[in-house]
């Protein structure tokens, strides 16, 4: 037998094993720095938990592979009038335990999301009432016209009423309740994957739902392990013990790129980083300076000119971020493509400070978390040294998030200069106006995260109007105009939009969404 024949026989053998392999079970092993905190889809509103559970539970609507909103448990919907919506439910859907899905499950889940211990009340904040028209139709009435009701409903997961009733899980766990929550450690959704076993913080195994109504890629089993230590996480990928890690620490990108059989997967995340400046106190805190320099637009502009965001991206973020021109990223509805950044220029910054009466700069304190965002502590250090070049002396308080957030959020807002970021969960900039940019009014529930206390009434009015405008074009224009007003007034100094950076084995087709979703039904093992 010639050498050539041997080679071809070997090739045929290899091919046939490969083919046989693809018909078998395909397991994907995923490691992440955190674990889902609960299996109850209404108890913890934390992005990783939400998107992990989105593989098990489903909502009325969801994002498809291309990030467009599409029907999930609702097959179709129709708007009867400005405030009334009817949703036709998908027939022949069953929960993982075999019971069938119908309107009473949706009504139950909405009531549950509004119950006292739920963390998803905001999802239905615009809703006046909801009812079942028949077995397979539900009607939702909103308080006022709500153009982004579908976006709001994305995070509302549907549970089985009978299952919840039978297991005493009518409400997401109440912390004072003496009994443990069944729904925190067990799941029964309609999603493409079922929970086979769960040891919190250790290992969770999912199996494909064989009676799923939709299409699923070739993944039949998902083994999910949390690995908190970044070095261990990367080692597990490099040694082939896991197929995918998220997030991949930025400093390990070159290592993964150089290694055989693994790749770096990255795309823009919907999170915009920014630096905030106190615009509501008469006297800034933790600073020897008299009064509040930030009330002067020239000082805010000087800070924006002094902070070289591109340098921060190049050095601190290892290039894994894009410059932000405003307070949302380009995939968010309401993004204004005409806006530009104030360019980095030390001289402009210095002369603006001199005009404002601070020719020698001044001293202040900056608050910064060290374990919440990608390289947050280093971003602040970079900002401190950039500001030193224009004569601003910054005392940096870099602290763990457990100390940082209690200090800077409501009710104290105990900072005059800080680093923060926001992801609009609805992917619509109205969410940013309601939470971060709108004038702070805690009674009305707006601006709860407006830590800088910036207030532009004209922008508030535009956002309020946009909230009830159904025409998408007109509405988008309003939001863009409102954003332009905020940027002109340098409400915050935008820094960058960070990238989602994951590591994966070469043979895994990874689908990344800007919100950190990882819809496993679109994943394939080649």
């Amino acid at each position, binding site marked *: 037998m010639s050498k050539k024949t041997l080679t071809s026989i070997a090739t045929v053998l290899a091919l046939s094993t490969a083919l046989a392999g693809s018909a078998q079970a395909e397991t994907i092993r995923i490691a992440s720095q955190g674990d889902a*905190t609960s299996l109850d889809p209404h108890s913890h509103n934390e992005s990783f938990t939400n998107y992990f559970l989105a593989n098990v539970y489903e909502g009325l609507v969801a994002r498809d592979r291309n990030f467009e909103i599409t029907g999930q448990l609702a097959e179709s919907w129709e708007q009867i009038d400005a405030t009334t919506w009817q949703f036709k439910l998908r027939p022949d859907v069953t929960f993982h335990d075999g019971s069938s899905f119908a309107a009473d499950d949706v009504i139950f889940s909405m009531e549950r999301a509004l119950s006292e211990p739920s963390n998803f009340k905001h999802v239905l904040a615009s809703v006046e009432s909801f009812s079942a028209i028949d077995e397979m139709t539900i009607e939702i009435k909103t308080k006022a016209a709500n153009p982004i009701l579908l976006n709001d409903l994305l995070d509302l997961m549907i549970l089985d009423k009978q299952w919840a009733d039978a297991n005493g899980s009518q409400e997401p766990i109440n912390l004072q309740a003496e009994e443990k929550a069944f729904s925190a450690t067990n799941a029964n959704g309609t999603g493409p994957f079922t929970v086979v076993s769960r040891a919190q913080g250790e290992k969770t195994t999912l199996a494909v739902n064989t009676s799923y109504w939709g299409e699923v890629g070739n993944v039949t089993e998902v083994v999910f392990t949390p690995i908190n230590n970044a070095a261990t996480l990367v080692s597990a990928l490099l*040694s082939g*013990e896991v197929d995918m890690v998220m997030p991949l620490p930025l400093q390990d990108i070159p290592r993964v790129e150089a290694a055989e059989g693994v790749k770096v997967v990255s795309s823009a995340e919907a999170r915009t980083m920014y630096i905030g400046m106190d615009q509501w106190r008469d006297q800034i805190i933790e600073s020897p300076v008299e009064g509040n320099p930030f009330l002067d637009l020239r000082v805010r502009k000087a800070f924006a000119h002094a902070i070289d965001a591109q340098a921060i991206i190049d050095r601190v973020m290892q290039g894994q971020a894009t410059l932000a021109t405003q307070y949302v990223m380009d995939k968010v509805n309401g993004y204004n493509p005409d806006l530009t950044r104030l360019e980095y220029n030390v001289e402009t910054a210095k002369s603006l400070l001199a005009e404002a009466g601070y020719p020698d700069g001044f001293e202040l304190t900056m608050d910064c978390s060290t374990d919440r965002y990608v390289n947050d502590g280093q971003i602040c250090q970079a900002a401190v040294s950039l500001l030193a070049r224009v004569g601003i002396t910054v005392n940096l308080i870099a602290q763990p998030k457990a100390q940082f957030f209690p200090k800077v959020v409501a009710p104290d807002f105990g900072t005059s200069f800080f680093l923060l970021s926001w992801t609009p969960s609805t992917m619509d900039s109205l969410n940013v106006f309601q939470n971060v940019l709108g004038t702070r009014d805690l009674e009305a529930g707006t601006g709860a995260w407006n830590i800088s206390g910036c207030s532009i009434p004209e922008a508030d009015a535009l956002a309020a109007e946009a909230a009830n405008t159904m025409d998408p074009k007109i509405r988008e224009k309003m939001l863009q105009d409102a954003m332009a007003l905020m940027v002109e007034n340098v409400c915050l100094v935008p820094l960058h939009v960070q990238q989602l950076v994951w590591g994966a084995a070469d043979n895994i087709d990874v689908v990344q969404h800007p919100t950190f979703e990882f819809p496993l039904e679109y994943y394939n093992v080649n």
Partner: protein
Amino acid sequence: MYFLITRLLQATIVMLCVALVGFLVFQFVGDPVLSLVGQETSVEDRDALRESLGLNDPIFVQYFRYVTNAVQGDFGISYSFNRDVSEMIADRLPATIELVLLSGVLSLMLAIPAGIYTGIRRKGGLAQTIMALSVIGVSVPSFLLGILLILVFSVWLNWLPSFGRGDTATVLVFDSSLFTWDGLRHALMPAAVLCLFQLGVILRLIRAEMLEVLRTDYIRFAWARGLPGKRVYLRHALKNTLVPVVTAIGLQLSSLFAFSIITERVFQWPGMGSLLLHAIGQSDIPLLAAYLIFVGLVFTISNLVVDAIYVLIDPRIRHGVR
């Protein structure tokens, strides 16, 4: 009996103090409510939750309530996991215990013979090598050692798994990963890292004590009586080094629980240590308090055991000779 009662009383007071200190410290770990709710939760909802968790009560009211419940075995519900704290600890405890046991046994098996040997042949080449290696064990931080081991044995050689606990099997009533091959493969590196520090400390202590004792007169008399070396070293010398050595071993082994925090983190070992780190990150006060009390209990009990062992090995204590 009197001895036992006073010891138990002391232990109770120690435990109450541990709980109190823990409670005072937790006032500074951050606001648990913020890690419990999402960014869109309203200020009123946050306040309502804080009130209903009893976080607005004076600290001593909270402390008293906690101790009353804890005495009845109820450590509350973890804020971040929504599960019974006692149940979570029961889940994680076996993993830590097997790691501590494996590394404890390993370090004793290696340290005692090596300590005796280096004490006797202190100028020999092998003894010098052992002493040099023990310096590494004592001085290299465990997280560094752990990552080095992962790099060599998992990434380069691909011999051992880099993280997690392996399959478990049940022998009698104990469900442990030490009873399976896969489990042992997983446990080997973390146990080795934990063991190395203990090994260095215990070895050096035994060696120093041996050197001390071997200089004493009664050892010379023993030699003069023509006793065989084995009898002199093991019966006469080693037995008299044991009191300080047992104290140190008792404390060292209970501190393995504390050291295991870092090792568990590096190897993603699902034990008490990783649970503690999670609890700190989430300001999960019930979990933190329970962990602290648990570690306090381990130290208290191991001290009680050490005291009891003294009585066995030192007749002077048994007979009340001062």
